C-alpha cells in the first residue's frame, strides 16, 4: 500500500544521519520532526533565526515571539541559539546545513526543483527562503505526493513550473516510492504498493 503522510515522514526521518543540522520546510516536511529519534543529536534550524528548535508549542508554552518558518508557535530545546536573519541565511547559503527537506510542485529527474509558483494567472507569487535552501543545504530532499490530483506525475523529465533551483535535489520521498537522483539517472530505492515496472511506466522513466 502507498504510504500515508506520517508513514512517509517516518521514512524521511529514518534517513537523516545522527548529529545532522536540518531545516524542515513548511507543510509536509514539518511532520518529519515528530519522527526523529530522540537523543540522536539532530538539530533543527528554522530560517527565521534559530537553531535547536523544538516541537510545536502547546497551551501555556505558546509564545508569539517563538515561531517557526510557518509562523506556528514552537518550543526551544537545551542548547538552542537565536540569530538575526542575515546570519540565519548566511548559515543556509554558506553550506552549513546538512539536510533540508522541502515540499514541491515538481521535481525533474535532473534534480531541478519547482516549489514556489505554479505560474497560474492571477496567482500571487511567494518564495520565502526556498531558493536559499535549494542552493545552500548540502542535501536537498523533497517530500511530496508522487501524483497530482489529475493523475499526472510530479517527478518529471523537465519542470513545467517556474524553478526554485537547478539540479539541487538529491532524493525524492513520495507516497509510492523513494527516488535517488543520481548522476547517471533515477534509482528507485523502494516502492510502496506499486511495482517498480508499473512505476517506471507511469513516470516514463
Amino acid at each position, binding site marked *: 500500500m502507498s504510504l500515508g503522510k506520517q508513514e512517509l515522514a517516518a521514512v524521511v526521518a529514518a534517513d537523516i544521519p545522527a548529529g545532522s543540522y536540518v531545516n524542515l520546510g513548511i507543510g509536509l516536511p514539518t511532520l518529519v520532526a515528530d519522527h526523529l529519534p530522540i537523543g540522536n543529536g539532530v538539530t533543527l534550524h*528554522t*530560517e*527565521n*533565526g*534559530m537553531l535547536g528548535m523544538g516541537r510545536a508549542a502547546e497551551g501555556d508554552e505558546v*509564545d*508569539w*515571539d*517563538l*515561531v517557526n518558518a510557518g*509562523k506556528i508557535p514552537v518550543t*526551544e530545546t537545551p542548547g538552542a541559539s*537565536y*540569530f*538575526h*536573519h*542575515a546570519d*540565519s*541565511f*548566511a548559515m*543556509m*547559503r554558506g553550506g552549513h546545513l546538512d539536510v533540508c527537506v522541502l515540499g514541491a510542485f515538481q521535481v525533474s529527474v535532473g534534480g*531541478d526543483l519547482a516549489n514556489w*509558483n505554479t505560474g497560474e494567472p*492571477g496567482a*500571487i*507569487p*511567494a*518564495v*520565502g*527562503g*526556498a*531558493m*536559499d535552501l535549494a*542552493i*545552500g543545504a548540502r542535501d536537498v530532499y523533497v517530500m511530496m505526493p508522487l501524483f497530482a490530483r489529475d493523475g499526472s506525475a510530479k517527478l518529471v523529465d523537465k519542470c513545467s513550473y*517556474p*524553478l*526554485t*533551483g*537547478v539540479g539541487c535535489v538529491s532524493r525524492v520521498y513520495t507516497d509510492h516510492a523513494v527516488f535517488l537522483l543520481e548522476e547517471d539517472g533515477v534509482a528507485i530505492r523502494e516502492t510502496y504498493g506499486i511495482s517498480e515496472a508499473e512505476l517506471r511506466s507511469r513516470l516514463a522513466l
Partner: protein
Amino acid sequence: MTAVLTDPDEAVADIPDGATVLIGGFGPAGQPIELVDALRRHGARDLTVVNNNAGNGDTGLAALLATGNVRKIICSFPRQTDSWVFDDLYRSGKIELELVPQGNLAERMRAAGAGIGAFFCPTGVGTPLTEGKEQRTIDGREYVLEYPIKGDFALIKAHRGDEVGNLVYRKTARNFGPVMATAAGTTVAQVAEVVPAGGLDPEAVVTPGIYVDRLVTP
C-alpha cells in the same frame, strides 16, 4: 546619539512622502505595530516598504497598506492565509511587488549597512527571479549580482534598550531587526523597556546603539 521618546507619532513624524521604509518582523513576530500604526496616522504617501511579508489580517502593516499610501512593497512571502488586504491591492494593480528571496532580502540590506556595493550570490540562479541580472561563474559555480537595499527609515521592534540605544531582542522576534537597523538613514526602535547605560550585558548586546537613532517605549 540616541533620542529616547515615548510618543510613536513623534518618532515617525519626519518620514517624508516617497520614503523607503524598512519594517521589521517575520509575520507578526517582531513587527513594530505601534510604529507602523503611527506611520499610518502620519499619512506619508508614495512609500516603498520592505518587509518579509505583506501584512496579516487587518492590523499593523496590513492596515498601512489599506490606506493606499504604499506604492511598492519589497518582500519574500506576500501570500499568506490572512494577507487579504495585500491580495486585493495586488490583484487590482494598486501596489507594486518586488519579490525577493528571503536570504537576498536580508543580505542586500546587510550589504547596504556594511558599505558593500554589490555581491555575487548563488540564490535563484536559473529561476525567473534572477532573469536579466548579471551572472558570473566563479570557481565553477554560478552566481548572480545583487545590489544593496537601503532604507531612508527603519522601524523595528526589540525587547529592551538602554539609554545609549543598545538593543536586545526576544527569541525569533529578532529576525530582520538587527539587519534593518544597519541599513537605514534613520532607525527607530520600539522596545518594552529602556534601562540605564550599563543595564545590558555588553557581551549580549545584539544591536549596538550606533545604529539606533530613536528609541520609543510606546
